[in-house]
């Protein structure tokens, strides 16, 4: 059994990446993720790894592209405005079928926004991490332990499917401290990467890492092949926590740190006799549609609770597909919803339904 230690979320993220075999980190300072970089700067030189503070987020993500081309486990981390800058590189990485790990410790937006926790990059993470037809894997932890565990998963899945993976955290998870243990996994169960540009040593034809296909037929073929892979992922990889949903009338849907607040509101509602439950998507892409569809058969309505003006609620509505009403409650700009506010919303909906 591994040792339990008290750690800040951002530092736990960094240590989990190292434990997963990451030896190359490229980043640029931004609040509230700076401790990821600071931790890497301290640890990497001690273990023969690379910590490099890039001149910009744009440069950092392209350093990730280079290191990923060489086949190593590589990571960058940032917060909302910095992720916007990385989207160019993420599109090229996805278009070149390269695996890597990107951390977004979200803050309020748009623009420079604020530095308090937010979930307003849901659309960006699941819809628009760059131009073109592609997806990335998006994991949304709710505790620091889960954040650690998902870093291992994210690297494995990124390698397996040859695509970028993102941990979509927020300023709350990044800054809070919790006890955590690091699974003593074989850090180097890493798969072979025969496509990597490591120098052919005159033993194989040259490898090319590229996203340019000037022949539209060839480009369409490449994209279609990628989407066939996405179909397998949508079948095999969705993850969600179901909490008290079996007999629930109202099912709240929430991810990340917000789900912890929602869970206490669900408990309070139960103690008042309201049959509330919760679905917590752990993968945001692929979105756990089947769980939603299953629960839509028994629940009377859904309530998506987010630290945004309502982004994931779009995916809830697509999954529920009109079978049941889907409501939304959220706070934004760095405001964290309180359990009492969420409970109030549950009561308002359920009262109105009676």
């Amino acid at each position: 059994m591994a040792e339990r230690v008290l750690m800040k979320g951002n530092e736990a993220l960094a240590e989990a990446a190292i434990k997963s075999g990451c030896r190359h980190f490229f980043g640029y300072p931004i609040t509230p993720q700076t401790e990821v970089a600071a931790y890497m700067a301290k640890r990497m030189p001690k273990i023969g790894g690379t910590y490099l503070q890039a001149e910009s987020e744009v440069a950092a993500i392209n350093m990730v592209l280079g290191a990923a081309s060489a086949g190593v486990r590589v990571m960058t981390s940032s917060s909302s405005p910095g992720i916007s800058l990385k989207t160019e590189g993420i599109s090229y990485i996805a278009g070149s079928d390269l695996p890597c790990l990107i951390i977004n410790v979200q803050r309020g937006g748009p623009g420079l926004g604020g530095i308090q926790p937010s979930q307003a990059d849901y659309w960006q993470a699941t819809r628009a991490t760059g131009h073109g037809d592609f997806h990335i894997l998006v994991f949304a932890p709710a505790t620091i332990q889960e954040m650690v565990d998902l870093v291992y998963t994210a690297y494995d899945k990124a390698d397996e499917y040859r695509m970028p993976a993102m941990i979509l955290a927020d300023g709350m998870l990044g800054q809070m401290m919790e006890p955590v243990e690091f699974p003593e996994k074989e850090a180097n169960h890493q798969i072979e990467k025969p496509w990597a540009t490591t120098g052919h040593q005159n033993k194989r034809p040259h490898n090319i890492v590229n996203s340019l296909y000037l022949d539209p037929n060839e480009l369409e073929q490449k994209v279609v092949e990628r989407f066939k892979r996405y179909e397998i992922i949508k079948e095999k990889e969705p993850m969600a926590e179901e909490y008290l949903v079996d007999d629930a009338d109202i099912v709240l849907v929430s991810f990340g740190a917000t789900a912890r607040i929602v869970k206490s509101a669900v408990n309070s509602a139960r103690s008042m006799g309201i049959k509330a439950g919760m679905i917590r998507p752990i993968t945001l892409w692929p979105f756990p549609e089947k769980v939603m569809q299953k629960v839509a058969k028994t629940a009377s309505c859904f309530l998506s609770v987010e630290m945004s003006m309502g982004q994931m609620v779009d995916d809830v509505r697509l999954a529920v597909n009109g079978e049941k009403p889907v409501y939304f409650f959220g706070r934004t700009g760095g405001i964290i919803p309180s359990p009492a506010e969420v409970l109030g919303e549950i009561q308002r909906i359920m009262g109105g339904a009676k």
Partner: protein
Amino acid sequence: MAVVFEKPKTLTDATLHYCPGCTHGIIHTLVAQAIEELGIEGKTVGVAPVGCAVMAYNYFTCDMVEAPHGRAPAVATGLKRALPDNIIFTYQGDGDLAAIGTAETVHSATRGENITVIFVNNAIYGMTGGQMAPTSLPGQVTQTTPYGRDTSVAGYPVRVCEMLSTLDGVAYAERVSVDSVPNIRKARAAIKKAFQNQINKKGFSIVEVLSSCPTNWGLTPAEALDWLRDNMIPYYPLGVYKDTTGGEK
């Protein structure tokens, strides 16, 4: 019959897509010769730019990565940090290196990344059809400076070797030209040295190659070489701007 020229084995058999009279083909050959002569093909990874040379990944027989526009030095940095014993080079044009990629260029240089940068300066954006480049000369007519580059509006050209030679991280910066046989010979030596420096772990080496673009300059190939000689070389003097290797070959 005596063989007077052979294509380097480090160039593939793919047909180059460059316009007639374009000097990219010469520069590709010089890079490939350097790789072949140094016997480093098996451990070399090249980084192609966005611009006329975007498809360079099809032409060199070493492993290749195609970078986003201007980001080749960042991609090369990632490659070099992951593969410190390999040889990493970028091949970039003027728009890529001196406009959109200025930050990546300056910072990889000032970090002293142990990489080799081949910078092709033809004073114009070729691939997109002849727009003003950061290195277009004052008064030069391009598609986007139809009345000539007016420095009061469009500013002045960037002299890359002069600028980078002020940085401590730069080991070697030389400007060469491929307008004539003697200059091609000098370019060949400079490019080989820029690779040799990396083998010797000297740090950042850049060779700026003045190159012609007959198509977008609206000149014949022969006229274009004259224009290069008469207009570019006076503005961009040839020579070694920095060499911390003590003139090592």
